[in-house]
């Protein structure tokens, strides 16, 4: 019996694996260790504005992930040809282009969603996370890690948004994704929805508590700004 031996072609040693340790870090670090909201303190403004209810928070997170990922990809592709003096304007053009495209496509194919999101989609342009990551990461990295970094930061942002929105919707309106979760019995016995929860300051408190909890659990973050 002849034993067939397959000879593997020697791998190009210089080429980095698609999910090398470094790339995995670009993707997963923003979820916790390097979270855009709680550690990098970016994107706080929209985290206060769109977390009153869970559904818009989720859709906002998806939209931002898309824009952050593809703007990072595009910027990383053309990073060497962008003139340094106008790099931020170029970044802004790319971001605005993507956001407008998303908006147009939603209007044409998912009209109901676009009606709900009209304000929020435009807000993505001014979201600090997108430009923050372009400046800090995509301008100096190859396209693939930059793309992963965009996705990671979008998801890291999304986690915080959804967590905050769950608390705000449940305690502020007694619902979750529009369904009633606090039974009528509570209301009959004098329970009232917390009016503060639907206002922006509640998000600030909740994010503060989240940061507290995150740092008490994750020792890497102690003494990180």
């Amino acid at each position, binding site marked *: 019996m002849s034993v067939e031996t397959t000879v593997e072609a020697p791998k190009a040693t210089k080429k980095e694996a698609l999910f090398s340790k470094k790339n995995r870090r670009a993707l997963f670090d923003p979820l916790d260790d390097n979270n855009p909201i709680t550690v990098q303190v970016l994107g706080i403004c929209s985290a206060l504005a769109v977390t009153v209810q869970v559904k818009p928070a989720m859709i906002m997170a998806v939209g931002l992930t898309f824009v952050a990922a593809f703007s990072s990809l595009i910027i990383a592709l053309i990073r060497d040809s962008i*003139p340094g003096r106008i790099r931020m304007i170029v970044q802004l053009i790319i971001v605005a282009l993507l956001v407008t*495209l998303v908006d*147009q496509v939603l*209007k044409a*194919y998912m*009209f109901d969603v676009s*009606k709900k999101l009209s*304000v929020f989609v435009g807000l993505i342009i001014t979201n600090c996370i997108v430009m923050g990551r372009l400046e800090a990461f995509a301008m100096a990295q190859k396209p693939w890690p930059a793309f992963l970094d965009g996705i990671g930061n979008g998801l890291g942002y999304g986690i915080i948004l959804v967590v905050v929105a769950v608390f705000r919707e449940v305690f502020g309106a007694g619902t979750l994704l529009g369904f009633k979760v606090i039974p009528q019995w509570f209301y009959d016995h004098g329970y009232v929805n917390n*009016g503060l929860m*639907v206002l922006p300051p509640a998000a600030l408190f909740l994010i503060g508590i989240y940061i507290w909890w995150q740092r008490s659990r994750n020792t890497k973050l102690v003494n990180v700004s």
Partner: protein
Amino acid sequence: MHSNRYTFLFAAAISVITAILLAFTSESLKPLQEANVALDKKTSILRSVRFEGTDRTVIENTYASQVQEMVVNSKGEEVSGVKTEDIVVKNELAKPVGDRNLPLYVYSGEADKKYYVIPLYGTGLWGPIWGYIAIENDFNTVYGSFFDHKSETPGLGAEIAEKPFQQQFQGKKIMDDDNQFISVNVVKAAAKVSFGDEHRVDAISGGTITSTGTDKMLKVCMEPYLAYFNKLKTK
């Protein structure tokens, strides 16, 4: 460091490329978007007469077979030669009452009962609010209502677009016993008012400005139609 010449060329090139991309997408998606807007208007009108369907073809068919569009003026006359789809309610509101073209949608329900749907347009807290209100053929009872908004606060003002708020209007009256126009007032539950329960619905707590806007919108938009309604009543 790139040269000035390169910087200018790069800026020009990226502007042109993105502009072409955007213009192309916008133009190619325009028919779809306009169809969506038209369908959305038809859906909103049908929602005000308690129609629940969501399927595109069902909505188109129901609208085509059961809704008749017409234009009236504040003197109670029917205006010919103007199409409802050409009328922008916002622009009409800017004109003096006498010059306004008032679109009216007549829905034929079961047993040929007619419902008169009036378009509404007003201002909320952050932006425009709009809607439709359906009046039964006694020209007094509200059959149903539908409201929508551009950017009211979710959980507060935005509640006007939700069913619980809209359903309050069903069965309310817009005229008092002396046939004077009272409208349906959006007021706080605790507010003391001179009219009865059939003329009021509960405002949204925390959404006072949107509620007041809705209240004003109802009054301003419904009143010019009364002349036409009176004419039909005496027929």
